[in-house]
């Protein structure tokens, strides 16, 4: 009864039992068995930490996830106050969203060090594109995000001239036209996060 890799399945189809595998994305567990929750093809990945393979269902590319705790999201800053920056989450784990989710980066979650001396306006400006990580589901209105990692922070920003700024250091960016330096919480992007969002 163990499903074969590459086999097609639709929601509700029984794939395997929990003794034989772990439930991955696109599956759910009920009464000791793993069922598919998406229509797609069955895939199995061997996890390093566990001897059981991870069963998942790969569906057509448009499967969209909602922001989960720990996910890396791309967001656009919309509003800043002295305590927090509000943003729209426009992509989750490199998958663009058709509709943005609301997010918020609190002052204490901007940097790893010197948390108390962070000033929001020196880190973000409305319109900036930043990478952030989901901390928690937050409250009714916003997801709670953090940029307190080297890899996270502003990746795209524009100067008053309308030119994209060039990162200088972890907290400065410069306009290539007017050579004005601006303060930002600059990300040191990792290649894996730089991939262009898939459509």
């Amino acid at each position: 009864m163990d499903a074969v890799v590459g086999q097609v399945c639709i929601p509700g189809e029984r794939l395997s039992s929990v003794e034989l595998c772990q439930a991955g994305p696109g599956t759910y567990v009920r009464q000791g068995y793993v069922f598919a929750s998406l229509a797609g093809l069955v895939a199995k990945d061997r996890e390093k930490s566990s001897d059981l393979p991870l069963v998942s269902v790969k569906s057509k590319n448009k499967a969209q996830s909602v922001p989960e705790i720990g996910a890396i999201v791309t967001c656009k800053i919309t509003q800043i106050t002295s305590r927090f920056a509000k943003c729209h989450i426009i992509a989750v784990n490199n998958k663009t969203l058709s509709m943005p989710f609301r997010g918020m980066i609190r002052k204490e979650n901007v940097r790893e060090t010197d948390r108390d001396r962070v000033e929001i306006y020196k880190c973000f400006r409305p319109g900036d594109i930043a990478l952030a990580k989901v901390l928690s589901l937050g409250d009714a209105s916003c997801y709670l995000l953090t940029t307190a990692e080297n890899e996270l922070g502003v990746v795209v920003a524009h100067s008053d001239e309308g030119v994209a700024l060039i990162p200088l250091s972890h907290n400065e960016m410069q306009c290539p036209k007017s050579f004005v330096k601006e303060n930002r919480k600059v990300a040191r992007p990792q290649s894996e996060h730089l991939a262009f969002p898939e459509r």
Partner: protein
Amino acid sequence: MPTDSRRLPVPEVSHSPELFCSSDPTSLINDDSLRKDGRNPEEIAGIFMQCGTVSQAKGSSFCELHKTKVICSVYGPKDVEQKEDFQMIGKLKCDFKFAPFSCHKRRGHIADLEESELCEVLTQALSSSVCLHRYPKSQIEVYVIVLENNGSALAAAITAASLALADACIEQYDIVAAASVRVFGKENFLRDPTFHEEYFPHQLSKKNDFNNGVVTVALMPTLNQVCGVLSEGCMESSVLQEAIQTCTEEAQNLYAPLRKCLTSNLGDINV
């Protein structure tokens, strides 16, 4: 030029002439025990299903059950509206609409009580199949429009909506298939009733047999769970139970075509 938008060039009240034709309900089945459209009572109607009909939606489907045509599109998951409370599970928002031209009678643009009731039934049937806990703080929108109503519209709508959800890659515990049966006398169960075979309250039942009504059941076929029941008309409870059983079987039979429809366009995925 200012015009009065409320003025429509039609009389305020008008009725379809068919209302005035005397319909003889006892003739649902003719002497050869065949129905008006030539089917046996137990014969199901042909069904056509297709995914991805609406290109702009996240997922969509089109379903045709005899002449009944239903189109469904799914959007989301997206952020809930600002005013709502924190919810650890997602919210399913459905909209069920008969197109103005879909029925014998012209339908208004604003949902009437029947539409809002069918919408509730649809929402409740789908919420038991969608893994809502996977979509915290989000909402999933399902829009169903009946383009032509030739009976069994609710059943077609539920099946189409579940198909569209699967097409939109929304996680579901199981597909939902729905079917309806017209009960006409104790032993006559007409499967997939057409518009003429739907239940109308003023139709007389057969002599000495008051069992007269229509039952729609939504089922999750692999889990064997009933996620929607709607009936109308008067029946003995044993007849009702039997009718539900018949619907369940019929919905079970829909599983194969549903699966075929969903798996037909999966070939291009790389595992």
